[in-house]
């Protein structure tokens, strides 16, 4: 039976008419036009649909939209603030971590979850942190570099904030 639920996505509340069986990925993409979240496999294997729910990584293709009421959802569209890219996003561009771009949104969100928890990750921690996101284009080398670079940028910004 269809019903109206309120979803909080990227800090904004949306009233959405859904059926209980609707998956978060389809609601994001089809009802809210938040198409940055990708559907690479629909089975939880590729990580292209990764979003953060209450700060934790989640696969939107295995998540019921109805179960997200009252929770904070962050999608790729919520990473930039006032048109300024998040340092992780900028690092992905600058370090050549983007090729076809299909894994990129999920990869960026996995990187965010990683850096929120480990601001200065080791190489292994970076690889572990993105191990749920397949990339067929890059061989991951430049993605790992970008995450390392993003960590340094975020650290520098934090230090700068302390100084001021």
């Amino acid at each position, binding site marked *: 039976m269809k019903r109206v639920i309120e979803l909080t996505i990227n800090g904004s509340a949306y009233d959405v008419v859904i059926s209980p*069986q609707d998956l978060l990925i389809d609601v994001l993409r089809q009802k809210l036009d938040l198409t940055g979240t990708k559907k690479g496999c629909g089975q*939880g294997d590729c*990580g292209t649909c990764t979003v953060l729910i209450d700060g934790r*990584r989640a696969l939107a*293709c295995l998540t019921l939209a109805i179960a997200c009421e009252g929770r904070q959802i962050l999608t790729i569209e919520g990473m930039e603030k006032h048109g300024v890219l998040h340092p992780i996003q900028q690092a992905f561009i600058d370090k050549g971590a983007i090729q076809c771009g299909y894994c990129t949104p999920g990869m960026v969100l996995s990187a965010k979850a*990683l850096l929120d928890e480990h601001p200065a990750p080791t190489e292994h921690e970076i690889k572990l942190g993105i*191990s*749920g996101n397949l990339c067929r284009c890059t061989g991951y080398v430049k993605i790992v570099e970008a995450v390392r670079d993003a960590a340094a940028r975020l650290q520098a910004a934090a230090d700068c904030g302390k100084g001021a």
Partner: protein
Amino acid sequence: MSLPPFEYLAPGSTAELAGLLAAHRERCRILAGGTDLVNWMAEKIYRPDYVIDLRKLPLAAITYEKGRGLTIGAAATIESLERSPVIREFYYALVQAAGQIGSPQIRAMATIGGNCCNASPCADMPPPLITLEARVALTSARGSREVPLEEFITGNRQTAIAPDEFLECVRVPDPWPHSACRYSPFGLRAAQEIDIASVAVNVALDPATGLFAKARIAMGAVAPFAMRALKAEASLVGNAPSGETIDQAALVCSRECRPIDDLRASASYRRHIVGVLARRMLRDAVAAITS
């Protein structure tokens, strides 16, 4: 793929949950992390009329009290197990198992209750839990009962849970004195793997004699469910933790398991790997106790 239609229920108390289960029985499925259930509904393996979500229930706690052991709420995520300091200190094999499940995303979503109740032959949590003598608390409107996990899982995706019951928590007794537990899965890739085989061991040494006092070994992905290596366990107890004893026990493990040939590996390879893993894990565990 779209999911088949169902009604979604999110009870606010365990009493309410028990009531819903009593009312809907086989017509409902419990949703925790959803990493298995959603896939199975998409594949139309399940077409429940009701999906009952545990998310509003206080079932995610992990507590440890000396003398009473460890209690893991059914909805505790695999990630929370992996990060729990008490589990890392006292039940290291569980951290090893939790850290190997799926991907960071899956670990953040999937729960211990789901991993036990879905009873996949290659599930990572049951082998170490079984070696740690874990019991599951099953609750219904009729009351509560506790069942050893080993008896709870009865087959490939089959358990002893009644249609009106839910798994409330997993209880693990205090670690044995002078013991250590270890777990190792084995797959092709370093992440996102479905195990070819896995072995968990939990052994205690007699501090006076230095001999194996107690031993439990469980093997995953080599039988319809995580199985004990009873003969191998028996071969350890009372013997010195020498390379020879361990090698012998490992050999017995590889004989005891009942693997099949499939896409992921041949039965003979699985058998061999079980032996290698058992030897490595027993050595690691003994080293951990004696160091």
